[in-house]
């Protein structure tokens, strides 16, 4: 009885204050969105002014590409293989088995390759950036850079965001190629097709330009992963716990953003007539 009346009193209180207070979660959401927008804006205003941290950019490109190469390659191979094996029975049922290479290639290049690669990238690279910058923040290393004549935003954030934006499309090109190789091997497990015929089949229907929208959207995926990782790391709160949270939040937020961007991208490519 007590609990009940206390509950209603609490509720009534909320309604009474409704026009004046924003629920804390909502307030947090709006504030956070505002901060990310400002952070992104800063990237564009600071990123194109000298001094350019070209060496650090190259180093980041190398590290980011190198770290994710084997994981992306392996998953891409398995993806192509599995997709081919699983798509064969339904295509057989409709008697269009000869379309299998094209169908696999089309779905891999346009959608599955970019999205899966980006998700793996978010898990591997995004979380790494979040944790690295987070621990640099809480141990005052970012402040130490600042007093050593370095603009840490340019040195740490701009280089990483540019590197992720550049490297993810390159990784996607690689992962799509490996997926198609996996698909070729998958085809040859049950059926038989020559290398030339397999790829001939694909490119008979699939124009080479089909990869362009994919690359453009992966550029945005990479940008989102880098930006979110840097933002969460750069603004992580004090303590080691904050570092873990920065890494975790990076993966969650950037994975979500990847799907969001994908959704927008498909509308745009559809409007521009790129889908067929």
């Amino acid at each position, binding site marked *: 009885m007590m609990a009940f009346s206390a509950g209603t009193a609490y509720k009534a209180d909320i309604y009474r204050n409704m026009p004046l207070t924003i629920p804390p979660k909502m307030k947090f959401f709006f504030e956070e969105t505002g901060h990310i927008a400002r952070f992104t804006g800063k990237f564009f205003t600071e990123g194109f002014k000298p001094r350019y941290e070209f060496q650090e950019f190259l180093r980041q490109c190398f590290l980011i590409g190198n770290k994710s190469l084997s994981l992306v390659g392996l998953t891409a191979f398995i993806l192509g293989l599995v997709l081919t094996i699983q798509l064969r029975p339904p295509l057989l049922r409709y008697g269009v088995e000869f379309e299998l290479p094209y169908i696999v290639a089309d779905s891999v290049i346009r959608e599955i390759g970019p999205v899966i690669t980006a998700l793996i990238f978010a898990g591997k690279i995004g979380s790494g950036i979040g944790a*690295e910058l987070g*621990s*640099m923040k809480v*141990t*005052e*290393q970012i*402040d*130490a*850079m*600042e*007093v*050593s*004549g*370095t*603009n840490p935003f340019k040195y740490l954030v701009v280089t990483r965001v540019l590197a992720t934006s550049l490297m993810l499309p390159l990784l996607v090109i690689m992962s799509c190629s490996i997926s198609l190789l996996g698909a070729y091997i998958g085809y040859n497990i049950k059926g038989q097709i020559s290398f030339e015929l397999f790829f001939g089949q694909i490119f008979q229907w699939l124009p080479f330009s089909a990869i362009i929208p994919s690359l453009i959207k992966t550029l945005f995926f990479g940008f989102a992963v880098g930006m979110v990782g840097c933002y969460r790391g750069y603004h992580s709160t004090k303590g080691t716990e904050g570092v873990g949270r920065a890494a975790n939040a990076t993966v969650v937020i950037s994975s979500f953003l990847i799907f969001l961007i994908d959704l927008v991208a498909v509308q745009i490519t559809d409007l521009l007539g790129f889908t067929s």
Partner: protein
Amino acid sequence: MTDTTTISRESPPVASQETVIRISGVKKSFGHNVVLDGFNLDLHKGENIVVLGKSGSGKSVLIKCIIGLLRPDDGEIQVFGQNVTELNHDELDQVRARVGFLFQSNALYDSMTVRENLEFPMRRHWIKLSQQEANEMVMEALDNVGLAHTVDMMPIELSGGMRKRIALARTLILKPEIILYDEPTTGLDPITGKEISDLMVELQAKYQTSSLIISHDMKCVERTADKIAVLIEGKCHALDSFDGLKASADPVIKQFFE
């Protein structure tokens, strides 16, 4: 370690009248937490001033305001006659190249070796050096803190006290004219602590550096301080020599000397 036993504090170098840091009426709050509330202090060339204060009283905040890492809400901070709160990024960098800052948490770069850590400020401040000169400077700075053998190690492989000394070497490598030390001897054994204090005094005598030192270590304070500023409730409560404050009847000040 350098031979510093000959340095005595009997005749402290006479501080000139030239003011290198002038802090006037600085206020800083975080939300409702008022940390600095009208702090005033002048640091002259060739002078060591120790800032004493309880934990959480805002000592670190104060020196972060001086170097421009935090922006005071009100008041003025002049370093070499320039108001740091009004400088743009490039001008601030020029001031920072002449000021050394030792972080309380050391702030060594985890991803770099000791050598790269020490080279970082040289390279970043646009100082043109051949590889050989850079190496010599690194080795000299490491020799000063007695850690020449760690040059190719990673910070993670060092003990806490060694990290503090590497951080000190990194602070001193550019031979700054002003040095801001945030607890230089905390976490060191008494012997190393004494060596660091002696090094600080030696630098002051040799290069006429001016320092603002935050320390709880009374041995270090006694050895290094020309004057002591007591920071209480966001203000400079007292400014006097070590002996002067030790003889003080003020109960608040007495606490520090017990």
